């Protein structure tokens, strides 16, 4: 090939590359917009329905815009079941789970990343292996343990496992801490700092970006968690938001306006967290493949 031909071809080629011709780009946008509408539509329909009068939900063809706007669906659904209480429960449980698990997981991650001790590799492999165990497989013995401890029908049954066991968080933070240069610690060691002070004053501040992404995920996971609360909690006073919504669905089977208001109440805090933290969430996923479920 003639040496002059190469740059010409390349230039023409890169010029064409982003999405092809204008027509193609427009078609692509149309397809993607239709897709986006499908993705978001259930949320829109939920919100619209939550403001309708119940008679409007049994009309064919469907009425899109509420007429009149029935704001009372929200206070009504809040009163129908103790949603306020469930909110409080979900919120405080999630905050404790996120706080404590970030602390314990980062501590373990620090030891796995920076301290040499006998059995480290084996122990770390054990942590990795438990990530493979689906939580439904261990649910029966876990239930029996909770019964032994007297924690069934208390929030401890949800908080303690969440706060003290998260192999994934340990794994992710360990990878992150391994990237911190050795020199940062060595200076502190020479100054006579204890391991705890190195962790607390040097490592932890450097972990803030990683832990904020992880924290959002742990929060979403805890807020949305359904299986454990379903099995460990019976007293409606102790219910979390998903459990309460499930209860609600059982009692108001066809009252779609109240059900959609209830769903909106359950979803809105999560969507707010998502909209605020979406860049961190998506970057976090991209880096680690972590998931909130």
């Amino acid at each position: 090939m003639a040496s002059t031909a190469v740059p010409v071809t390349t230039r023409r080629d890169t010029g064409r590359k982003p999405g092809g011709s204008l027509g193609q780009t427009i078609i692509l946008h149309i397809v993607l917009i239709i897709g986006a509408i499908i993705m978001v539509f259930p949320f829109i329909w939920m919100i619209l329905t939550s403001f309708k009068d119940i008679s409007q939900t049994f009309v064919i063809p469907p009425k899109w815009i509420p007429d009149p706007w029935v704001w009372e669906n929200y206070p009504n659904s809040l009163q129908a079941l103790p949603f306020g209480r469930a909110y409080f429960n979900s919120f405080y449980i999630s905050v404790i789970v996120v706080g404590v698990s970030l602390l314990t997981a980062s501590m373990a991650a620090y030891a796995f990343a920076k301290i040499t001790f006998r059995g480290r590799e084996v122990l770390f492999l054990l942590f990795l292996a438990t990530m493979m165990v689906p939580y439904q497989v261990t649910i029966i013995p876990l239930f029996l343990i909770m019964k032994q401890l007297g924690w069934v029908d208390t929030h401890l049954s949800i908080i303690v496992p969440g706060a003290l066991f998260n192999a994934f968080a340990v794994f992710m933070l360990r990878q992150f801490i391994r990237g911190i240069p050795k020199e940062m610690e060595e200076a502190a060691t020479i100054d006579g700092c204890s391991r705890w002070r190195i962790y607390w004053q040097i490592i932890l501040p450097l972990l803030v970006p990683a832990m904020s992404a992880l924290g959002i995920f742990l929060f979403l996971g805890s807020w949305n968690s359904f299986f454990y609360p379903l099995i460990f909690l019976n007293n409606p006073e102790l219910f979390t938001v998903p459990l309460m919504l499930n209860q609600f669905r059982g009692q108001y089977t066809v009252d779609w306006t109240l059900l959609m208001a209830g769903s909106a109440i359950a979803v809105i805090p999560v969507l707010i967290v998502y909209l605020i933290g979406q860049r961190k969430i998506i970057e976090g996923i991209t880096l680690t493949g972590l998931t909130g479920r």
Partner: protein
Amino acid sequence: MAVSTRPDVQTAPVRGRQVSRQTSDTLWAIVFIGPQLIGLLLFSLFPLLSAFYLSLTNWDGFGNRTFVGVQNFVEQFQSPDLYTALWNTLIYTVISVPGGLILALLVAMGLNNIRGKTIYRLLYFMPVVTGSVAVSVVWLYLLNGDFGIINTYAQSWFGITLPNWLVDDRFVMPAIAIIGIWWGLGYNMVIFLAGLQNVPASLMEAAQIDGANKLQVFRNVTIPLLSPTTFFLTITAIIGSFQVFDQAYVMTGGGPGKASYTMVFHVFKQAFIDFTFGKSSAAAVILFAIILAVTAFQLFAQRRWVHYED
């Protein structure tokens, strides 16, 4: 130490310090790992071993537990419920995993190098952060056979009579799988997008210069270079699909009949409705074995199709 008259007296204190440093490091490691280790032992490892043990007993949660050997497993394999649960779970896996991954790849390819990527990503990802119960309740209404908006418009716009999804035993699992695709699309797409960023544009250009058309570039450059991502997502998606439960529990209670009775539902029902912990543990062990076997097979088979760059 100080009384020693041997020539290596000078190194002794140093060695002593090293030893104590090692001991103190081990102690620190115990302190640092302790909380998570207790959690791991108490909430994962011990329950896992107990699940194996319980599967060999006929315990009902009260009174004596009697060792019954493999009887629970024999009963499981003789029970039609197990096969119903396996079949329903399989329907979910077969629809939601390939459907979800192919769709996610297409969207990711569309979004790669396009203006407005961030806003599209924001919208497509929204369902991922939403909890299973809210998703179920909203879709319950969307898929309602009489007043659901999907069936209504399919009829009036296109003249298509769609099935009454959630009360039709042939369509309830496909419906739950479609919801699953919608729910997980954003996650798979984001991971694919990250994978696509790692496919060097220079390679695609080189292929194009060599005269490959877009489809050929896709088949022979993009797909192989993306295979580690696809592999990761396939493993996660299949494991996740075997755990489907919440939607079936909230929307249909496993019904109509047993048409959405999944493997986890099978474990759940025998344990927490029938209180036959032994039998249920056997079902849980079977579920675990299936997940392990499928994952091991994928790890083995990856050599044939997953391409790692050296």
